[in-house]
Structure formats: structure tokens, C-alpha cells
């Protein structure tokens, strides 16, 4: 090459896969694999080491417990395994190929799905994190079989005011869930005034997870206007009406009507078994589930602080129907964003029931896939006041609206070649400490993005990563140690 001046490349900016080889800038690679980047150069990626010998792992999440963390794994045979207790699954659902997960107060809520919707005739489960079998979340309300609740005026002086009072019972489970009001037949007592009320035959739950019971009652109803509809009045928790066991069957209560302050009416329509969803998330301290089998466009929202309390009547939102299921839900700046494959809408909590929340149509061309909202370390996806979303068009930064240019602009040809039918297998994770994005692709390989030079389409540096094991899912532990799950060798 006599007579020519060499060009020294000072920077290596990763893969360029957009247009032909002639269009590759000098400081990019037309092809590369297993590369990671240092300040002005590159080296091969860090190696992997065995972490846990579990067979055929399809999905993994980090479960942050009260003390420490564990991995929650789903195997190809439908076994849900806690890595702290790897010898026995805490739940088995043979037809589950994927699952949604949400940790809440040291408990794990898991919902089996097929990667599109929740499984048919299946439910959301709660796992307490100590190795014992998971059970269906929520719980059955008191029934007449549990105890035919009766109420009578006591001979003991008290404060119950004259008029009709209807009494009922609510079970409290070991996860703090308050069941619907029961039993089916509720006693309506005409109180004479000035005495206590003696309750007998208080229902006892056959379920061992019921640890407390609560007495609820209506305020005095004028006998002239009493309709006889025992569930047609507002119920309140009775002061000192808590029974701290599941065995006692009698209790005397005494209360003025103006002591009935804690409304229990919202419990009348609670789900006793929560349907299985495609995924679970949180918004305003409410558990959110989306895309159940029978209603793929419905998003169900629990009562704040009570993750198992889903109201069957008004605890839901409906994403406008288009034949496709809801794929994801993410809280950001006090707004709940919900996604389908190519659509994004937003809801805001109006401090009323979820069904009354106003909806804003945000984007009719860009959406998200089931696992493609970038999780930041072991948490949900918001970081640096934005989050990262993968969809059919690319990987986007979302700040309340999508940035015009995708982070994958430099590798757009590679991204658009991905099979759109398998986007529900794509996972996106963000390591904000090392400034990296890890993307698990449906073919068992990964895409690695390094944004230490800038979190924008120009400065991010990409490289494919391949492993002999077929990578199905990844997560973080210990801050930003990347964990990779595999179901076998890659074909």
C-alpha cells in the first residue's frame, strides 16, 4: 500500500448492521461476536461459570425476600423452583411454558401462562418463600357450612343502637388477605338498644391459611325502611371485632354507630380465586395482572396494599380491543402505562375505583412484548427517569413518550430480521452500574449493548453474544451479577 497514509482507528464502536458492508463506518464492525467494550477498544466477553444445576430452565426471576434473595425458576416440565429449596418444586403446572412474577412484602406471586395469556382455568398463586407449597392467592369466603352465624341481644349492657343491624364475618389469611363477606345467610337483628350483641356459630374456615376472623356489621337501619336485603347495606369493621384464631365460635360485641368507621363494603365482590394472567406488576402499591385467558385485553388492579384483593366488579381496566392481548404494564412518574404489541396507553389513578380511571391513548404504532421492558437490576424498569422497551421496531428509550430513534438504529437490519412471532421470548435487562443492556433473543443467543459512551443510538455499542448453552432467560443477583438460565445446548 505504498503511498497511502494509514488511518488509525481510535475508537471501536461495535456492530453496524444497517445497509451493506460498504456503509459500515470505519470505527464499527461489519460482524462480531462475544465482544465487550473497554474505554476505547474491545475484548472478549467475560466467561460464565455454573451457578445452579437445575434442568431445563425456561424462565428465571430474582425473588427479593425479607432477608436476601433467591431465584424463582420455571422448568420445561412445569415445576416452579425456589433456588433456596431446589430439591422440591413449590408448585407444578405441567402446561405452563412461562409465568408472571411479582414479589410483594417478601412473598412471591406467580401466575402460570403460555407466553401470551394466562393459562385457561388456572389461577394466580402465592408462595411464602420458605419452601412450603404455594397456594391459590386470595381465599374462600365464609359459607353457611362453615357456621350458621346467629346474632341475639345480649343481657349485658352495651352500646348497640336500636334498629336493624346485619352481622357478617370476614376471614383473614396468613398473607393478610381479607376474604369476601359471608356466610351466605346473614343474621339481621333488631337491636333493642343499650345492650351488647351476642354472636354464636361464628364460621370457622376449613382452610389452614385462615389465621384471623373479623366481625363486620351495618349501622342501625330504621325498621320501617328495612328492605330485607341483607347484602344491600354498607358494612363496617366492628371495633374489637377481631377474633385472633380460627376456632372460637362466640363473641359479644358492643359499639356505637359512630364507631363504625372502617368500611368493609369493598369486600363484598372480591375474587376468591384470582385468574391466571400473562404477567404481574405493581402500580401505586396495587398488584396488577393482565391478559387472563378469557379476557386478554383486561387489566385487573388490586386494592392498594392488599395484593390479593381483586374486585370482580370495578377492579379492572379494559385496553381497547384489537384481537391482541395486553403484553405489559409499567408504572412511571405516577402513571400506569399498558402495552400491546404495537400500542401504548396510559391510565392515572383518580383515587376512585380502577374502572373509573381515565385512559390516554399514547402510541398506536409502538408497544412492548411480554418481557421486553428493561428490568433494572432486580427491580422493575425505571432508571434515570426513563425505561427501555423492546418491540417490533427496535429498542427504545421511553420517557413518557418514545424517543424518535431506536437505540438499535445501528443494527436495525439485524433487529427487523427477528421473528415477530417469538417476541414474547425476548427479555431486556439493564445494568445501570456497568451501563449495559442485555437482550435475550428467541434463538438462545443474546445481544449486548454498552452505553458507557452515551445512552443514545449513536454512542451505544452493540455485539451479539453466543454461548454453547441455549440461553432462555437472565436476571441479576448481588446487584449486577448476571445470571443466565439454559434449557440445554444450543442447536
Amino acid at each position, binding site marked *: 500500500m505504498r503511498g497511502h497514509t494509514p488511518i488509525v482507528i481510535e475508537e471501536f464502536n461495535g456492530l453496524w448492521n444497517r445497509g451493506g458492508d460498504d456503509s459500515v463506518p470505519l470505527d464499527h464492525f461489519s*460482524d462480531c461476536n*462475544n465482544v465487550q467494550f473497554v474505554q476505547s477498544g474491545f475484548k472478549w466477553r467475560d466467561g460464565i461459570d455454573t*451457578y445452579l444445576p437445575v434442568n431445563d430452565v425456561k424462565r428465571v426471576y430474582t425473588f427479593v425476600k425479607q432477608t436476601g434473595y433467591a431465584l424463582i425458576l420455571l422448568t420445561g416440565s412445569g415445576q416452579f423452583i425456589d433456588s433456596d429449596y431446589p430439591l422440591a418444586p413449590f408448585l407444578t403446572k405441567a402446561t405452563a411454558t412461562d409465568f408472571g412474577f411479582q414479589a410483594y412484602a417478601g412473598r412471591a406471586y406467580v401466575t402460570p401462562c403460555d407466553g401470551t395469556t394466562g393459562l385457561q382455568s388456572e389461577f394466580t398463586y402465592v408462595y411464602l418463600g420458605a419452601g412450603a407449597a404455594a397456594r391459590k392467592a386470595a381465599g374462600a369466603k365464609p359459607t353457611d357450612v362453615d357456621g350458621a352465624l346467629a346474632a341475639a341481644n345480649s343481657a349485658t349492657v352495651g352500646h348497640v343502637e336500636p334498629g336493624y343491624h346485619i352481622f357478617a364475618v370476614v376471614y383473614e389469611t396468613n398473607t393478610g388477605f381479607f376474604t369476601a363477606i359471608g356466610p351466605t345467610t346473614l343474621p339481621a337483628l333488631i337491636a333493642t338498644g343499650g345492650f351488647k350483641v351476642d354472636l354464636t356459630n361464628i364460621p370457622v374456615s376449613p382452610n389452614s391459611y385462615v389465621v384471623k376472623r373479623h366481625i363486620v356489621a351495618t349501622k342501625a337501619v330504621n325498621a320501617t325502611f328495612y328492605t330485607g336485603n341483607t347484602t344491600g347495606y354498607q358494612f363496617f369493621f366492628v371495633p374489637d371485632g377481631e377474633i385472633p384464631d380460627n376456632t372460637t365460635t362466640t363473641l359479644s360485641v358492643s359499639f356505637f354507630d359512630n364507631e363504625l368507621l372502617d368500611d368493609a363494603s369493598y369486600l363484598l365482590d372480591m375474587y376468591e380465586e384470582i385468574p391466571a394472567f400473562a404477567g404481574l406488576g405493581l402500580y401505586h402499591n396495587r398488584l396488577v395482572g393482565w391478559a387472563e385467558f378469557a379476557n386478554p385485553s383486561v387489566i385487573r388492579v388490586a386494592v392498594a396494599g392488599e395484593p390479593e384483593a381483586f374486585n370482580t366488579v370495578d377492579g379492572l381496566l379494559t385496553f381497547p380491543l384489537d384481537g391482541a392481548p395486553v403484553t405489559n404494564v409499567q408504572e412511571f412518574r405516577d402513571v400506569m402505562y399498558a402495552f400491546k404489541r404495537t400500542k401504548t396507553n396510559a391510565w392515572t389513578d383518580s383515587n376512585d375505583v380502577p374502572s373509573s380511571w381515565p385512559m390516554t391513548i399514547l402510541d398506536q404504532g409502538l408497544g412492548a412484548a411480554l418481557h421486553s421492558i428493561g428490568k433494572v437490576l432486580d427491580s422493575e424498569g425505571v432508571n434515570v427517569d426513563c425505561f427501555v422497551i423492546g418491540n417490533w421496531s427496535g429498542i427504545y428509550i421511553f420517557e413518557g413518550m418514545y424517543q424518535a430513534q431506536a437505540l438499535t438504529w445501528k443494527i436495525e437490519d439485524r433487529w427487523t430480521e427477528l421473528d415477530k412471532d417469538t417476541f414474547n421470548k425476548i427479555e431486556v435487562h439493564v445494568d445501570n452500574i456497568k451501563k449495559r443492556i442485555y437482550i435475550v433473543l428467541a434463538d438462545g443467543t443474546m445481544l449486548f449493548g454498552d452505553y458507557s459512551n452515551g445512552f443514545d443510538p449513536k454512542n451505544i455499542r452493540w455485539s451479539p453474544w453466543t454461548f454453547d448453552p441455549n440461553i432462555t432467560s437472565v436476571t441479576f443477583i448481588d446487584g449486577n451479577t448476571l445470571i443466565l438460565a439454559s434449557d440445554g445446548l444450543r442447536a
Partner: protein
Amino acid sequence: MAEGAGVYKIVDGKTSDTIYETQTAPIVTTEHEKPNVEVELYLIGDE
């Protein structure tokens, strides 16, 4: 257990995969067919 199945972790600075020694070797290609351009690659860090 199926060969290769399991849970792995990335180890900072590790230059090979424990079981599959050759898998982390990087592949890098630059193709510039424009005439009169010579590319000198400087590999910084691990070889």
C-alpha cells in the same frame, strides 16, 4: 439432566466459559472495500 442445561453466572474478568472453553473468543470483522484505505486494528485489553 440435558447437557448444557442449568443456571450460569457471568464472572468478571473470566476469559473462558468453564465448560465450553472456546466459546468466548471474539470474532471481529471489518470489511471496507473503498480503495486506498488501510485499516490498522489496535486490540486493547485482553488478547
